[in-house]
C-alpha cells in the first residue's frame, strides 16, 4: 500500500475537524425540524454552538476527585473523533489502513465504554441505572451494526471500510447491501441516543442517567461526543451503503456525503419526534429482532444477491 504521510495526516485532521465542527450544526438542523413537527418556531440553527459555548464557561461540578474522572470527557470525544478518521468521507478513510470495520466497531463501543465508566465513577445511582441501560443497549445494537458492516465486507471481500465503499460505488446497489444499510439505519437511531432509544439518558425517568452528574465543560464534551457520533455513524451509513454518485473529486464527494448524512439525520430526527421512549426490555427485544432479520442481508450476500 502506498500512502503519503502528509495526505494521511491532513485527511485525518480534516475528517476529525469536520465532524467536530459540523456535528452541532447537524444537531441544530435536527432541532429545527423537531420544532417544525411541534408546530413551533424552534431555536436558531446555531443554538447547539451556543449551548456548547455556554457550557464550556460554566462551573465544573465534580463528585469524584482525581485525574481519571477529569479526563474522561476529553477521551470520549477523542475516541469519537478517532472514529471519524476511520470512516470514509468523500475519500477512503484516512486511517483506513490502520483500522478496518472490526476496529471501527470496537472504537464505537470504546466511546460508549468511556461514557459508562464516567457514569459509574460519578457514583449516582441514576448514573448506574443509565450506564447499565447503555450497556444493554450496546449489546443489543452493536450486533446489528456488525452484521451490516460484515455484509459489506462479504460483498467487497475485504474488511476495509474504504474497500467496501469503493466496491459498492463501482458495483451499484444490491439487495444485500440495501437490507444491511436499512439495518444500519435502525441501529443509528440507538447509536445516536435518539428517541425511542435515548433510554440511558431518559430525562423523565432517571434525570439524564449517564450524564446526571456532568456539568459545564464535561457535559459540553459529552454532548458534543453524542452529536459527533451520530454524524459519524450517519456518514458511515451513507458512504458505505449509498456511495453513489461518485465523482472522484474529494470536495464534491465530501459535500455530497455530508448532504446525504444530513438527510439521514433528518430521518432520524423525524423518527425521534414521533415516538415515545421505549422501555429497555422492549428496546432489547426490538434490536434482537432486527439483528436476526439483518442476518438475511448476510445470507443474501453469501448467495451473491
Amino acid at each position: 500500500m502506498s500512502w503519503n504521510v502528509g495526505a494521511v495526516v491532513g485527511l485525518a485532521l480534516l475528517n476529525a475537524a469536520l465532524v467536530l465542527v459540523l456535528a452541532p450544526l447537524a444537531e441544530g438542523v435536527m432541532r429545527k425540524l423537531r420544532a417544525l413537527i411541534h408546530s413551533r418556531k424552534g431555536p436558531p440553527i446555531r443554538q447547539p454552538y451556543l449551548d456548547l459555548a455556554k457550557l464550556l464557561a460554566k462551573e465544573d461540578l465534580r463528585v469524584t476527585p482525581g485525574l481519571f474522572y477529569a479526563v474522561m470527557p476529553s477521551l470520549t470525544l477523542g475516541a469519537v473523533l478517532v472514529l471519524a478518521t476511520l470512516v470514509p468521507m468523500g475519500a477512503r478513510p484516512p486511517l483506513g489502513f490502520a483500522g478496518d470495520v472490526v476496529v471501527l466497531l470496537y472504537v464505537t463501543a470504546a466511546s460508549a465504554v468511556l461514557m459508562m465508566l464516567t457514569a459509574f465513577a460519578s457514583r449516582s445511582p441514576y448514573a448506574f441505572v443509565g450506564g447499565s441501560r447503555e450497556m444493554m443497549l450496546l449489546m443489543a445494537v452493536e450486533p446489528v451494526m456488525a452484521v451490516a458492516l460484515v455484509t459489506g465486507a462479504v460483498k467487497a471481500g475485504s474488511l476495509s471500510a474504504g474497500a467496501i465503499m469503493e466496491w459498492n460505488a463501482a458495483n451499484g446497489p444490491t439487495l444485500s447491501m440495501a437490507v444491511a444499510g436499512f439495518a444500519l439505519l435502525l441501529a443509528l437511531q440507538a447509536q445516536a441516543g435518539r428517541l425511542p432509544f435515548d433510554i440511558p439518558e431518559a430525562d423523565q425517568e432517571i434525570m439524564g442517567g449517564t450524564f446526571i452528574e456532568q456539568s459545564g465543560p464535561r457535559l459540553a464534551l459529552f454532548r458534543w461526543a453524542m452529536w459527533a457520533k451520530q454524524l459519524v455513524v450517519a456518514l458511515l451509513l451513507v458512504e458505505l451503503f449509498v456511495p453513489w454518485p461518485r465523482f472522484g473529486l474529494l470536495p464534491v464527494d465530501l459535500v455530497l456525503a455530508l448532504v446525504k448524512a444530513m438527510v439521514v439525520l433528518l430521518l432520524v430526527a423525524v423518527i425521534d419526534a414521533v415516538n415515545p421512549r421505549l422501555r429497555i426490555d422492549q428496546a432489547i427485544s426490538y434490536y434482537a429482532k432486527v439483528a436476526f432479520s439483518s442476518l438475511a442481508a448476510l445470507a443474501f450476500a453469501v448467495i451473491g444477491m
Partner: protein
Amino acid sequence: MFMAKLREAVICFKAGRVTLPYPAAPHDPEPGFRGKITIDPDLCFGCGGCANVCPAGVIFLHDAEQHARILELHWSRCTYCGRCAEVCPEDAIALTQMFETATDRAEDMVISLKVFMGPCQRCGRCFLPPTVLDQMDVAGFHEAGGGRP
C-alpha cells in the same frame, strides 16, 4: 402503526407554525384581565376596606400618627382576585391590564400611600361593604405588626 404515525404527521404539519412573536410584538390580554394592582392616591381616603377583604393579606395599614395613615401594598404576593377593587367605595384601587411586572428587586413590588385622614371623617362618607358577610367583619383593620386578625 405507520398509519398512526402518518396521522400524527398530518396533525403536526396541518397546524403549521403557531408561535406568537411575543415579546417582539405585544400580545395584550383581553379587557377584563386582572393584572397588577394600582391605587389612585387622589381618591383613597384610607378606609381600609381593601385590607380587610384581601385573602392574601397584601395590604397593610399603619397608623403612623394621628392624621396620617400609611397603606402598604405588597403586591408581590397579590392573588389578583380583585376583591379590593370590588369593595373600594371610591374606586381608588383597581386592577390594571399590566402583566409585564418582572423585576430584579423585591422592593419594586411595593406600593405605599400616605393618607392624611380628615378630622371629621370626611362628611360621613363611610365605606359600606357590599355584602352582609363583609359587613360583619369590618370590626378591626389589619394592624401594623400583627399580621391578620
